[in-house]
C-alpha cells in the first residue's frame, strides 16, 4: 500500500471536505443556525457531516417540520437517532392544509404546508441561517441555487437576482429580518450520497430498501410520495440500480409534475 502522502483525495473525500468547509463558514459567520432534518437520506448525510465539521458535536438545533404525515418508520427513525446522535430536536407541527395557497395543485399544497411550517419556525426561533440538504441534480430550479442563498423578508428566493459566488467567497451577512439558506450538498449527486452512506455506514429509514418489489427513492409525506419498482434491497444494489437507471430521482414526488412552474412557485415562496 502506498502511504497517505501518495494517495489522491478521492471524489467523496473532496465533496466531504468542501461540505465541511461550507458548514464551518456558516458557523463562523451566522449566529443562530438551524438544520432542517427531513429524516431522508440527504439530511442524514448533512447531520453526519456536521458532526465531523464540529468535531463530534452538533452545536445548533435540528428542526423536523412535522406534517403528521410521515411514515411510521420515519418517526421511529427520528426518535431513535435524536437520542443516539444527541440532537437538539425541534419538532413543531406544520399549519394545516387550509392555510396554504388554494391556487396551487393539490400535491403541491401538501408540500406548501412545509413552507408555512418553515416560516413559523423562522419566526419563533429567529434563525439567521438554515442548513438544508438540497442538491443541484435533483431538480432544474434547485440547480440554479447558490451555496449561501439569501432570502427576502418574506422568506422568498430571488431566483433572478442572486449574488455572485466564486472562489469560496460567499455572501453571508444578511439584511435584518431575513435569513440565509445554506446548501452544503449542492454539488453532490444522488449517487455520491449513496456512495458516501455506504462508505461511512450512515443509518437510514428502512423504506429506502426494496420490499416486495418496491422501494422509496425519495422520501416525503404519505399521499404525495410514492415508491418505485425496484428489487434493490442493499446499498450495493441501490448503487448498481442508480448507475443504470434513467428515471429521475423525484419521479415519485407528485408536486414536481403537476404544472410546469409548480415547483418553482413553491421554491420562490420559501420551500426548499
Amino acid at each position, binding site marked *: 500500500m502506498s502511504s*497517505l*502522502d501518495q494517495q489522491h*483525495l*478521492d*471524489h*467523496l*473525500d473532496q465533496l*466531504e*471536505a*468542501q461540505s*465541511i*468547509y461550507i458548514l*464551518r*463558514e456558516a458557523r*463562523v459567520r451566522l449566529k443562530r443556525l438551524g438544520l432542517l432534518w427531513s429524516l431522508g437520506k440527504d439530511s442524514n448525510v448533512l447531520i*453526519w457531516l456536521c*458532526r*465531523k*465539521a*464540529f*468535531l*463530534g*458535536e452538533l452545536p445548533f438545533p435540528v428542526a423536523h417540520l412535522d406534517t403528521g404525515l410521515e411514515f411510521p418508520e420515519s418517526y421511529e427513525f427520528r426518535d431513535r437517532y435524536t437520542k443516539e446522535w444527541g440532537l437538539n430536536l425541534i419538532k413543531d407541527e406544520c399549519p394545516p392544509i387550509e392555510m396554504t395557497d388554494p391556487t396551487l395543485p393539490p400535491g403541491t399544497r401538501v408540500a406548501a404546508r412545509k413552507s408555512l411550517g418553515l416560516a413559523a419556525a423562522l419566526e419563533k426561533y429567529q434563525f439567521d441561517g438554515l442548513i438544508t440538504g438540497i442538491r*443541484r*441534480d435533483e431538480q*432544474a*430550479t434547485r*440547480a*440554479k441555487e*447558490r451555496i449561501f442563498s439569501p432570502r427576502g423578508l418574506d422568506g422568498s428566493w430571488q*431566483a*433572478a437576482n*442572486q*449574488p*455572485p*459566488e*466564486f*472562489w*469560496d*467567497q460567499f*455572501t*453571508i*451577512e444578511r439584511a*435584518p429580518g431575513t435569513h440565509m439558506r445554506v446548501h452544503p450538498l449542492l454539488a453532490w449527486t444522488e*449517487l*455520491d450520497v449513496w*456512495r458516501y452512506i*455506504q*462508505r*461511512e*455506514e450512515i443509518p437510514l429509514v428502512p423504506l429506502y430498501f426494496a420490499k416486495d418489489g418496491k422501494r422509496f427513492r425519495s422520501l416525503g409525506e404519505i399521499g404525495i410520495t410514492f415508491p418505485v419498482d425496484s428489487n434493490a434491497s442493499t446499498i*450495493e444494489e441501490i*448503487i448498481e440500480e442508480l448507475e443504470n437507471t*434513467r*428515471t*429521475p430521482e423525484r*419521479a415519485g414526488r407528485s408536486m414536481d409534475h403537476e404544472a*410546469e*412552474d409548480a415547483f*418553482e412557485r413553491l421554491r420562490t415562496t420559501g420551500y426548499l
Partner: protein
Amino acid sequence: MAPAATLAAPRAEAPVLAPRKAQAPYPIVIVGHVDHGKSTLIGRLLHDTDSLPEGRLAELQKVSSQRGLELEWSFLLDALQIERDQGITLDTTRIWFKTAKRPYVIIDAPGHREFLRNMVTGASGADAAVLVTDAERGVSEQTRRHAYLLSLLGVTKVIVAVNKMDLMGHAEAAWQAVKDEVSAYLAKLGMQPLYVIPLSARHGDNITARSQQMGWYQGPTLLEALDLLTPPAGRADATFRMPIQDVYRRGDRRMAVGRIETGRIRLGDKVEIAPTGQPATVASIDTGRGDGEQFARAGQSAAISFIEDAALARGQIIAPAGHMPHLALALRVRAFWLDSEPLLVGSRLTLRLTTAEHAVVVEKFERIVDVENLNDADTQELGQGGIAEIVLRSAAPIAFDPHTDLPITGRAGLARGTRIVGGAVVLGAAENAASVKGPVTAVDSSVDRDAFEARNGHRGGVLWLSGLSGAGKSTLAMGAQRRLFDDGWRVLVLDGDNLRKGLNKDLGFSPAERLENVRRVAEVAKLMAENGSVVLVSLISPTAELRELARSIVGDGFHEVWVKADVNTCAKRDPKGLYAAARDGKIAQFTGVSAPFEAPASPDLVLDTGEFDVATTTELLIAHIRRNLALDQADGHAVGI
C-alpha cells in the same frame, strides 16, 4: 479526544467486493455572447449522449410547444419561467453526464452582459471552458469579455465552438474567419484554443456525431475534444498553505480549522503563522478519519493544534517555517468589477483573501483595460464588467502569494460592505509601497533598562487591562496612574479609545484589524516598559488570542488584568450609550452584544467591579503593581508609600 473516531467507518473492514470508486466529474463551463447557443449546445450534448432522464424530452417538447416554439433545447437548462419567457439564460446552472471515459459536470453560463456576475459564478468552478461563438455574428463583446474573465479565473483550457454553421451553409471560410479572430484575441491573453470546432448545436452536427455537411473538418467532435482534455494538476505538491477559518476549543486544546489549499502537513512540522510570523509546531491533525492522524494534504478540511500557545485567529495563514506568504501594505491586482456603481480612485473596499478580510482603498488605477482591443481605455472609473490593474492600500499588512505562484492564496473577492462586487488576482506588492519585511538592524538604546529602573525606583512593566466596554478599565487605569504619579512613579496609560483616534484610526473591528490594533498597542507598550515605565493598557481585547499575542510581544513584565463585570452590569452603566446603540443594531460586532468576550482563563489579577466599588479595585490594582514592580529598599531606593 477524537470524537470523529466513532463516525468514520473502519477502513480495514472495507467490504470484500470493493465498491467502484466514484470519479470526480470534470467541470466544464460553456461561455460566450448572448444567444450564440450555449444552452442549446448543452441540451443537444446531453440528448445526443443519451443522458437525459426518462420523460425529460417529452416535457421539453411540451413546454416548447406551449410557447409556440419548436423543440427548444435550451429549456433543459433555462428552467426558470422568466428565462423561458425571455428566451435567455439568467443564472448559471449545472448538469451531469458521462462518457465512456469519465463523468462531467457541465456548467451553463449566461451570455447577457447584465448577468456577468452569474457567468463568473459558474466559470469559477470550471477546469476547462467551451467558448461558443455564433458563426454568423462572429466574435462579439461578451465573447471577448468572457475570454478575459476565463484568463483571470485561471480557466486556461479553452475549446472554441463555432456554432450555427447551418446558417453559413456549413462553409469552411466562415469557420476560418471566426477561428482567426478568436485565436488572435486569446493569444493576446496568453492563451491558445485547444480546438476550434465548427458545429451546429440545434442540428447536432459535430457534437457527438461527425457532421455529414462539413467533410472538410478533420478535427475532433465536441465530445471527442472533451475526452481529450487533460485532468487538472493536483495541488498537494505546492507550498503548504492553510488559511484559518475558525478556532475551536476542545478542553484546553485550541485548534485552527480550515481547508488545506496547497501542499501537505504532518505531525511535528514547524510552521509560521502569517501575518504575525509566530512559530509553531504541529501537535495534532484531525480531518475526521479517526484517531491517530499523522498527515493531511491539499483539499482536506482539517483541525490542527500546536505544541506552543500560538495566537490563532480567522484570516491567518499557516505556512511552513521559512516559507511564509509575502506581506505588504499595498498590492497590485488585476480586477474584474461586477457592481453597477463604478469603482473610483479613493473607493473603499473589503479585500477578502481566502478567510482574511482587509479594509483597502483604491490608491490608483495603473490601467483600465478596453476589452474590445486590450488597449488602455480612456476612462477614470471602472464600470460594471470592466477589468483593470489597480493598486489597493491597506492599513494592516496583507499576507498573500503572487497568483502565478499559488493561485488560491493569490486571489481575492472584493466587497462593498457585505456585498461581493468584484474579484482580483494579486500580481504582487505595489512598488514604493512600504515593505513590511525588510532588512532591519536594531539600534541599542544608550541607556539600559537597569539604569532606567534604578533611577525610577521601580521596574518597567505592562498591566494589560481587558474587559467589556463599561467594565471600568479606563477609570481604574486613570485612578492608579494618578496615585502612582503622585508617589513619583513613571506611569503611562494607553487607552484603546484614545489610540483609535490617532495611532490606530485607520483600523476597523474585523478580526484582522483587531489583531493589528492589539499588535500595535503591545509594541508601543513594550517600548515604554523597556524604558522603565509602568504602562497601564486599557483595551477590551476580547479573545484569548489577542491577549496571548500581546503577552508574546511584551514578554517579561506582562500582567494580564481582568476587569470583570458582567454584560448586564456594563449595559446598565453604559457610560457612552454604546450598548443601547449596539442593541439597536447601529454598531456591528459590539463585544458582549454581537461579538463574544472570552473570559481570561488565568489572569494575573482579577478586579471585580461588579462586586466591589472603584476605590477598592483601584487599591487592589495599585497593590498588585507595587508588589510586582517596586524595587525593594534593600536596593537603596524608596518604595513609595
